[in-house]
Each structure stands twice: as structure tokens, then as C-alpha cells.
């Protein structure tokens, strides 16, 4: 993951995230939009083969960096919770099958 900064204002940032695609950007923008301080969060991939996703985040409160960091933290927690719940459910299923 390589990040290039295209534009930076006090409440707005535009970056290019190299090496990522819809897989990560879609969930990231959605998590950003859940934050009430975020006015606008979206990405675009100009050409599916030769472009890298361009992410624009605009906030009403705080800095865009803070908003992105909050979203990544949230996403991290969610994935961690999924792993824990999944492992637990799998163990339960296995125990039940062995009985």
C-alpha cells in the first residue's frame, strides 16, 4: 500500500491508494460515511486496469486524517470481532458434531 497525496486542505483530503481496489476502498468509504463528522467520502477508479483508487474525504469537524484513522480502527475491530465469533462458532459446531 503506497499513498500519494494529491490535495490537502484543512477539512478535505484527496489521496491515491496504490495497490488497493474495490475490496478495501468500498468498505472503507462506507465506514467513513457512518461517522457524522464526515461530509463526504467516496472513491473512484478511473480505469480498472491502469488506475489506482482515488479517495476524497471531507469533514465538518476535526481533520480528515482523524476521520480515516477512526474508520480504519473501526474496521479493524469489526474484522477482529468476526474472527473471534467465527472461531467460537466453528469450535461449537465441531464439538457438537463429535458428540
Amino acid at each position: 500500500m503506497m499513498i500519494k497525496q494529491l490535495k490537502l486542505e484543512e477539512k478535505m483530503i484527496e489521496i491515491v491508494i496504490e495497490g488497493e481496489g474495490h475490496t478495501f476502498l468500498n468498505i472503507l468509504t462506507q465506514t467513513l460515511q457512518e461517522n457524522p463528522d464526515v461530509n463526504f467520502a467516496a472513491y473512484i477508479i478511473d480505469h480498472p486496469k491502469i488506475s489506482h483508487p482515488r479517495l476524497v474525504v471531507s469533514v465538518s469537524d476535526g481533520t480528515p486524517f482523524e476521520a480515516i484513522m477512526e474508520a480504519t480502527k473501526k474496521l479493524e475491530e469489526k474484522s477482529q470481532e468476526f474472527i473471534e465469533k467465527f472461531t467460537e462458532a466453528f469450535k461449537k459446531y465441531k464439538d457438537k458434531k463429535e458428540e
Partner: protein
Amino acid sequence: MDVEIIERDGNRIRFIVEGVSPAFINSLRRTIMAEVPTMAIDEVVIVENNSVLFDEILAHRLGLIPLTTPEGKYGFSEDCDCQGVGCPKCNVTFTLKKEAGEGIAVVYSGDFESSDPEVVPVSPDIVIIRLVPRQRIEIEVFAKMGTGKDHAKWQPVTVSAYKYCMEFDFDSEKCTLCEDCIEACPKQILKREGDEIVCIDPLACTLCDACAEACDFDAIKINENDTKFIFTVEGLGCIPPESIVRQAAQILIKKSQELEEQMKTMSA
């Protein structure tokens, strides 16, 4: 969030996830297909091949053989100390030598000799090529870690899909008990119980809406619950399916951490 395993059989796992967004489940699906790394044959040295198959077709066939992948043992060769050249730390070498004597010889994936007994073809019965008398192949191949993003041969799964769970909405006041809906259902999962129509197997529902269309009185409504998903993963045998799912979620965590790190340095 709630997870429940419905089925785990062979290389297949089916589970229900409740309380997540479609975006999260879709990211998980895409990660499973494109970013969970496995071993696959990537480089082929053909010493001799006078069979009917051209070298490049043979190489392509070899690449598509699924290989068992021990978790955490191998990394990407780009991140290795050898810097992508290929060394025993990131590459597995296979050799194969076969000659048809007087009769016809069939070359199977099981004929390969691996440098690591933990990395072998998932099935020894995959036919690579048939040789007639006096034909012979001698090859040396190198397998390395990769992701489905680069080539489908590195995909750990054949199926990674989810669907919304169904909510069966039945209005007994509007229903005339004509039972048209029961006949219309292609999965045969509707049943009459007294004065009510009930769904006996909601997980089997394909959300086709045939029952609602068959009803002239709007007594049936099929709603999709977009926070509850049935997820199916069918592996190729390289990695156990439950491990694929776990690894995919870990990749999402790793990506988040990486972006967070970068944001920290950029904002400072």
C-alpha cells in the same frame, strides 16, 4: 455480530453471519477470492517434451494444479531475502520424468516429486498428459506463493458467495388457503399448517418471489434481510475453508493497520 456454522463437509463450509453490513460481507468475499495466498506452479523448465502438447499449453496445465499450502510456512518471494529470485525459503521445486515404454503412459499430478512433502498436489489423480510410445517429458517446476488478484491459479476457492437471508411475511387475514403458493415454490419449502402457510426451510429459499407472484391476494411477502447473510465457501483443498475465512479477515485487519500507520505519518 453473530456467526453460526450450518455445514462443514469436505472442502465446503456454510455459515450465517448476522449483524454486519453488505459492504463488510462483500469485502470478505472479494478478499477470499483475490487476496488469500496459496501455492501454485509459476515457473516451468522444460528439459524435454516431445509429446503432442506444446510447451506453453503444458505449462498452463501445470499452473492450474492446486497445491496444498501449509499456513504461514511460505511468504511471497518478493518479500523474501532473495528479493524474488527464488530460494528454498519461498519456492518449492518439483521434478517429473516420464517416458512411455511400449504402451501408452498417463502422466498424473501424483508423479511429481516435491522438495517439500507439505506442498504436494491436492489430488494425485489429475491427468496432465498422455504419452504414446517413444514420447517423453522431463520437467522441473517451481511453485511460489501468490494471490488470485494476479492469476486465478492462486485462488484458494472455487466458490465464495453469499446471499441475503429470507424473511417470510404471511398475512393470515388475506389468505384464502388456495395453496397456489405451495405449488409455485420451486424449492418446495412451503407447507400448510392448519390455517396458515409456513416456510419449513427458510435457508433453502432463493428469494425468487414465485410464491408472492402466485398469490392473488397479497398474503405473502418475501423480504430480504440485508444484515443477515448465508455465506458459502468451497475450497480447492489447498487450505481448509475455515482457515481461508479467518485469513481473509486477517488480511482486512492488516490493510486497516497499514493505512492507519500511513495516515499517522502523513498527519504528523
